[in-house]
């Protein structure tokens, strides 16, 4: 802190510009009032936008949420079209992504927090994670297109989609899990080690159970982001017209956000209504996931106290 102040005075500028202090007190009160007004306006508009955002979609799409909508395949007629292929595809994607990304991500986090010594390998891993978190999601789609769809010849299947999404959420899962593992008190580890447990026994019986709620919260948020992702699946070449439920890892698929995007890019307003309904389903699903995360976090905080 001292260094910062020194650096500033070395630039030859006084720390506080003096002319401000000579202004009358009333003007100061006024400027603060204006700032507060501005801040409140911005915050209220942010609230209103959130309400408008969710509200406009609910209002547009709610009427389309019929049983028929959930149990039909896409159709050229907007009123006959449904999201059966899309929601089943999304569920498949979610389950497969969890299956791939969760062990890999938590494993990497455990390695970095509990095992890794400061080496070039660890430094490189950390650098890669930090950079991968900032790579636009379209680019993951191109990676999936070349590696999973073409090189490994999985075609445009559920598996390719899930693997691509796994790579996308991996940095987020690793960062969240590391945070949770770091929160586990040192005494837990020392106690276990003192009783003669090996490193892995300590990790498995003490550290991971204690970190579990934190890991779960972070991962649920990451997966709820994954099912809302559109761009990587579009670049992967996911189909928009799929008239069957995926029945194997290699089945072609579509997903809720892709279906919504497809309907949204058509000019007819009837299809926009369908898009709103599909987005409503997607949002409800995500909100449910987020609620689980919030409950878990509350439980976790209570136990720590």
């Amino acid at each position: 802190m001292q260094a910062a102040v020194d650096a500033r005075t070395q630039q030859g500028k006084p720390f506080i510009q003096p002319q401000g202090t000579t202004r009358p007190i009333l003007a100061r009160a006024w400027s603060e009032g204006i700032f507060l007004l501005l801040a409140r306006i911005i915050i209220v508009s942010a609230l209103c936008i959130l309400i408008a955002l969710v509200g406009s979609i609910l209002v547009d799409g709610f009427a389309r949420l019929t049983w028929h909508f959930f149990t039909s395949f896409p159709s050229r007629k907007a009123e006959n079209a449904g999201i059966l292929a899309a929601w089943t595809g999304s569920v498949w994607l979610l389950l497969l992504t969890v299956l791939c990304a969760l062990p890999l991500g938590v494993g990497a986090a455990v390695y970095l927090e509990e095992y890794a010594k400061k080496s070039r390998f660890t430094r490189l891993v950390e650098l890669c994670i930090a950079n991968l978190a900032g790579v636009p999601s379209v680019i993951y789609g191109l990676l999936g297109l070349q590696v999973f769809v073409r090189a490994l010849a999985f075609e445009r299947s559920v598996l390719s989609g899930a693997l691509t999404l796994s790579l996308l959420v991996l940095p987020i899962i690793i960062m969240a899990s590391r945070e949770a593992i770091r929160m586990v008190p040192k005494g837990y580890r020392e106690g276990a080690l003192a009783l003669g447990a090996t490193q892995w026994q300590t990790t498995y019986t003490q550290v991971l159970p204690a970190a579990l709620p934190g890991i779960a919260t972070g991962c649920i948020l990451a997966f709820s982001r994954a099912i809302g992702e559109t761009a990587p699946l579009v670049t992967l070449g996911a189909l928009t017209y799929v008239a069957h439920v995926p029945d194997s890892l290699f089945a072609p698929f579509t997903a809720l956000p892709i279906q919504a995007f497809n309907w949204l890019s058509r000019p007819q307003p009837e299809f926009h209504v369908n898009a709103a309904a599909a987005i409503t389903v997607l949002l409800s699903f995500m909100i449910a996931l987020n609620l689980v995360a919030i409950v878990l976090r509350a439980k976790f905080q209570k136990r720590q106290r």
Partner: protein
Amino acid sequence: MPGRTKDLKLLEKLIEGALALCSSFSILTTLGIIAVLSFESVLFFREISISQLLFDTQWTPLFLEKHFGIWPLIAGTLLTSAIALALSVPAGLIIAIYVSEFAQERTRKLLKPVLELLAGIPTIVYGYFALLVITPALQMVFPEMGSFNALSAGIAMGIMILPMMASLSEDAIFTVPRSLREGAYALGASKLQMIVGAVLPGAAGGITAAVILSAARAVGETMIVAIAAGQQPLLHFDPLQPVETMTAYIVQVSMGDTPHGTLEYHTLFAVAMMLFVLTMVLNVISLRIRERFQRMYR
């Protein structure tokens, strides 16, 4: 039990190896991205020279008469990102100042989940909002505006970035030590003067990092611009006209049935390469600035 200890040791080694393998996936992914993008970009540059890319002003790889001037896509990306930042940077900063310096606990508790919710909404929803809510609303003000335009997409993108900008700036403001604030008060500053004179300069590094990270997010954002900004690569800076960003071009080609191995297919990766380099540079700069900023107050 020497045998058992030996087994245990072997098991420990195996587990450590497996965990190290898990973390090596991030290196593999990074290498994979770089390899895929450069391999296909090289194929692109075998047919199209860099001067064609830089000195042509038209981008029409999907037409019969092909032009490969990258500037329309860059202009589109810059225009939408600039609109988004013009909205999210001041608003995010004001929210951050308000929350950290003025707001009561109750407001803070209300605001945090709202921002988290805004941050968690999928981008396709913002795209829907831009196309079917913001654009019709703006058309009441600008009747000549088309249904696809840079302004609505930029505004929606700004709303999307706002939570990130606000929370990163709040972190930066939080890092500024109390003694700096007290020093400013001791010199007779009012609260606002204290903020402008002590807190903001003190948090400048962290705020700069936040702005650059927001810019990287805006440049890489895909669905909002693909839905609401249109898909016409035109070289202009008129926010009421349609534009095409680099990301929207990638989506446009992916949606069409472009055969593998053609020049159009290679353009996909050449554009993605530029996008990757651009966001990477922004991210690295932001990371560096933030590191230096955090070291300053340690």
